[in-house]
């Protein structure tokens, strides 16, 4: 049991952005992301969980966030998502970053999540493959295809990436 308030505070602050980014990117709705965010930490805190390392804890939190997102979206009445323009409006980003977010949010989830986990959350390729429950080769192929698709979409909004 995480009895110490400091423990909870440090863990939430460490993984808050990660959980929020994955939840918002996956559900593409802010109210859904809030619910997933809350549920993920509610699953983490009430029980005494043993983690081998901090990477293990991070992988568990990311995996739990993805499961909560899938469970949330599995309900038919919640499956409706906002349009890309509505999501970008809720994020209130600068113009260039709004274009990047629109481009990455327009990717299919099977290519968007590997890119996010690898480039943004800092997981290794093998960790990403374990979290996504796919083979490492499949992960690399998805990363490659996702990069190609994302570069094409970024060209459409006037951002050129080598």
């Amino acid at each position, binding site marked *: 049991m995480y009895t110490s308030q400091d423990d909870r505070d440090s863990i939430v602050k460490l993984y808050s952005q990660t959980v929020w980014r994955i939840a918002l990117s996956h559900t593409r709705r802010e109210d859904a992301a809030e619910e997933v965010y809350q549920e993920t930490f509610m699953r983490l805190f009430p029980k005494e969980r043993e983690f081998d390392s901090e990477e293990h804890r991070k992988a568990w939190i990311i995996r739990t966030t993805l499961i909560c997102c899938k469970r949330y979206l599995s309900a038919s009445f919640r499956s409706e998502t906002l349009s890309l323009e509505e999501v970008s409006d809720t994020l209130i980003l600068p113009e260039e970053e709004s274009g990047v977010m629109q481009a990455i949010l327009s990717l299919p989830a099977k290519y968007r999540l590997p890119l996010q986990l690898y480039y943004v959350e800092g997981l290794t390729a093998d960790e990403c493959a374990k979290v996504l429950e796919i083979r490492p080769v499949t992960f690399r192929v998805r990363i490659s295809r996702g990069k190609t698709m994302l570069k094409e979409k970024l060209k459409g909004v006037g951002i050129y*990436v080598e």
Partner: protein
Amino acid sequence: MLNEPKLNPNDSLGVLLRSAYSKMNPPPALESAVISGIPYAPRANTALHVRRFAKAIASYAICVILLIGGVYFASELMGETGPFATSPSEVSTAVSDPDLTTDADITTDSKKTTTNPKTKEPLYNGVPDVTYHPDIPSVNYPATPTAPFPTVKDPTPQSPTPDIPRPNSPNPWPSNNPWYYP
């Protein structure tokens, strides 16, 4: 053998993605609620709720229209007996119409039998009873007559038909005719 692409998390695309995702922060109220263990109510997505409400209203309206259309179509199939074919006043008029009364009404409803004040003939719903005859007692009369039946006298023998010979024709009934019976 699949040519595996080389991955570098610090390439230009990674830098761009990290820069874009770094602006995504959870609401401070949500973070503090999770830290303190207090349940946090997600903000209502007004646009989504309005859209869902409009969808629900539209589907309800479609159901009502289909229901009314189905009932109307069924009434058209059933003709004048349908709920939309005749108004309630028309239905009550049709029920009170004597032409539409059934035999059951005649035998059970005795209040509809009246008498013509001039001819004293019985009327049924204002129409003369075709079964009435002044010499024939009605079936409603008591089974035992109050007075004896009138005695019928023997008819008086009628006189034979006067033999009136026609002037321009021979007497059809000459007296020597064996078939003649005066």
